[in-house]
């Protein structure tokens, strides 16, 4: 039976090697917050510079205007190229900019997407940008569309498994996804109450031949084995 495509915000990309990459496109709320943080940083920096340059009167003000120009146009592009695709605001929200095919952004894409901020800003306060983001499947604003870039969520770092000690049992043959499912279950049982754990484990009764908490314990034993504990 063909599964109907489920609604999601993930963009799948297949590399020439046949590996499927999942990019989780980032939408308006996270990006608006990241933008606010960046704006705050820029304002603070410029204010500090203004105070520092105030001693130099006219010439100082000229320098400040140049700094204003450079900050306005180059701050995002610089960070996106040299700091792993993320301005400080994006980093705080766990976002990064990549090309639409998943490769890191280069100068041309970063410059295009940031210079075209001007188009997104139209008619005022990012009106077109927001409408474009809403109507695009991958939440691309006009600058992203022109530069062929995506803003995605950075994958969280993978942490080592921490399982409670106990007996380990080899599970019957399982696909990779199923192995991950069992490990997920055991890892996340800290936030599930025992009744729910038992309920979930009983779904697999045909497989463990156990009911109630005994089923949960069996799954835990499988997880320990899968995590490499073959004692």
């Amino acid at each position, binding site marked *: 039976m063909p599964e109907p495509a489920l609604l999601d915000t993930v963009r799948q990309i297949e590399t020439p090697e046949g590996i499927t990459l999942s990019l989780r496109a980032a*939408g308006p709320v996270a990006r608006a917050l990241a933008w606010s943080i960046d704006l705050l940083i820029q304002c603070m920096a410029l204010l500090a510079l203004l105070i520092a340059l105030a001693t130099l009167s006219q010439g100082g003000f000229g320098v400040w205007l140049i700094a204003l120009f450079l900050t306005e146009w180059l701050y995002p592009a610089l960070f996106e190229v040299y700091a792993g695709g993320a301005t400080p605001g994006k980093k705080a929200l766990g976002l990064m900019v990549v090309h639409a095919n998943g490769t890191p952004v280069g100068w041309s894409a970063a410059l295009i997407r940031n210079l075209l901020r001007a188009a997104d800003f139209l008619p005022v306060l990012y009106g077109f940008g927001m409408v474009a983001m809403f109507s695009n499947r991958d939440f691309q604003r006009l600058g992203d569309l022109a530069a062929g870039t995506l803003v995605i969520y950075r994958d969280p770092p993978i942490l080592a498994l921490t399982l409670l000690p106990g007996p380990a049992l080899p599970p019957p043959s399982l696909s990779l996804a199923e192995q991950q499912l069992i490990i997920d279950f055991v890892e996340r049982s800290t*936030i599930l109450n025992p009744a729910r754990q038992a309920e979930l484990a009983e*779904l697999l009764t045909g497989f463990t031949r156990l009911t109630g908490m005994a089923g949960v314990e069996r799954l835990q034993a499988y997880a320990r084995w899968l995590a490499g504990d073959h004692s």
Partner: protein
Amino acid sequence: MSLESATVALRLRNPWEATDLGVAMVRHWIGPVYGAWFTVALPLFLLLHLLCWGNWWLIPWLLWWLKPWLDRAPLYLLGHALFGDPPSRRQFRRELPRLLFRQLIAALTWRRFDLARSFVLPVSQLEGLSGKARRQRLRDLGQPGRGPAVWLTLVCANVEAALDFALLMLVWLLIPDVVALEFGDLLDDGSAWGQLWLNIIGFCGMSLVEPCYVAAGFALYLNRRTRLEAWDLELGFRRMAARWAGPGRTVARLAVLVVGLSLLTAPGMSRADHDELSLCEQRRVREAELAQSPSPVKQALEEVLREPPLQPCEWRQRWRFREDEPSGAAPEPPFRHDLLAQWFAGAVEMLLWFAFGLFLAVVGWWALRKAPRALARIRRRSIQPSPLLAQGRYEAISPPSADLADEAWRLWIAGQSREAVRMLYQGSLAGLATHYRLPTPASATEEDCLRLAARHLADPELRDFFHRLTRSWQAVAYAHRPPDAAVAQTLCQQWPRYFAVGGEWPA
């Protein structure tokens, strides 16, 4: 509600990703969601204008205040659509009054200022909880669920304000200058029209943002429950259990099949009766026989044989020519000639003939007027060879004149030795190009020309002559050392031998 019917991928997301899912949901069900939104919001907007006739400034505030009330219709729709049964229009209308008036006072008074109201709304509306149960539920969902919802509210409020300005500005930009001044005045004096205009803009901005806000809050709620109740694990386990159950069932049925097949081939069943039937018909007869048999094994076998993989017959549809069909069908009844239809058909036919005539006329005109010239142009282009370039110059080469050597000798006698040799040399290059098909590229140096000549000229005497001429030319050109009179005379005498042959322009 069953998780398996969810039309949205249930997986653990970070809260921001969940809000994105909300936006994606609105985009996916944009028609129904906005239908539900405007069913409530538009009448309310108009009603408020009637109720507050004259106090136009009051309306945006009232609309803002009534937002929680407007949120309910889109949420109802999303809640149903998510689990694969979007409500019909009638169902929606029947449900609407109950939807709008439950817990209304609380929603519009003390809960109005709850910054996480989009996250809280599904608990009271979709779960139908109130009072103590609702409070307990919210405590269970916990602070990590509420936090992002508060941020969501802040962001959406700002986005809505920004969109209002953007819309105002957009219209302003699109209005011609002359009118724009008056338009500005309209807003300045706070006149009724200006205020009405602002109300409409505000309503549009709100309509753009609010359904997304509701959906994003709903998605946050879903995400929170997915995390707390491990919905994604439940789905995965169910799928795993189904896979596990699958092979077992197949094995059992295969066993029945093996028994059954031995029965089928048993000699007791007469084949002869069935010989003239098609395979499908034979099979159907056999299935009927099995179904009627009292033996449970045979009945089980019949059931197994009915499964799609074991059916030898399948329906295929394809196109084929009508000639293949037996011509048994009666001819089409003649068309009833209607006067109007006839007239219309006649008119269309006339038009078509007229168009055809026009087409012929245009083609004829083109053939008479344009074609000869176009053909001539094409012919000329194909005949003209690409122009050869003279050494060092961008001009076409023509064959050297036959009396070039006499001319050169006259120059020599007149004391213009350099000019004389130059004339001979250039004439030779032109001659090489025209008579010997050896054009020298414009960028070639004298040495290049020599090398070319050495490689491509068959006649050793000609090669020798060209070599001597080149050396003389180089001496006079670069060292200002004219050749001896005897040498010059020889060159002039020998030149016509090679290059003055009645030059033909190469085709």
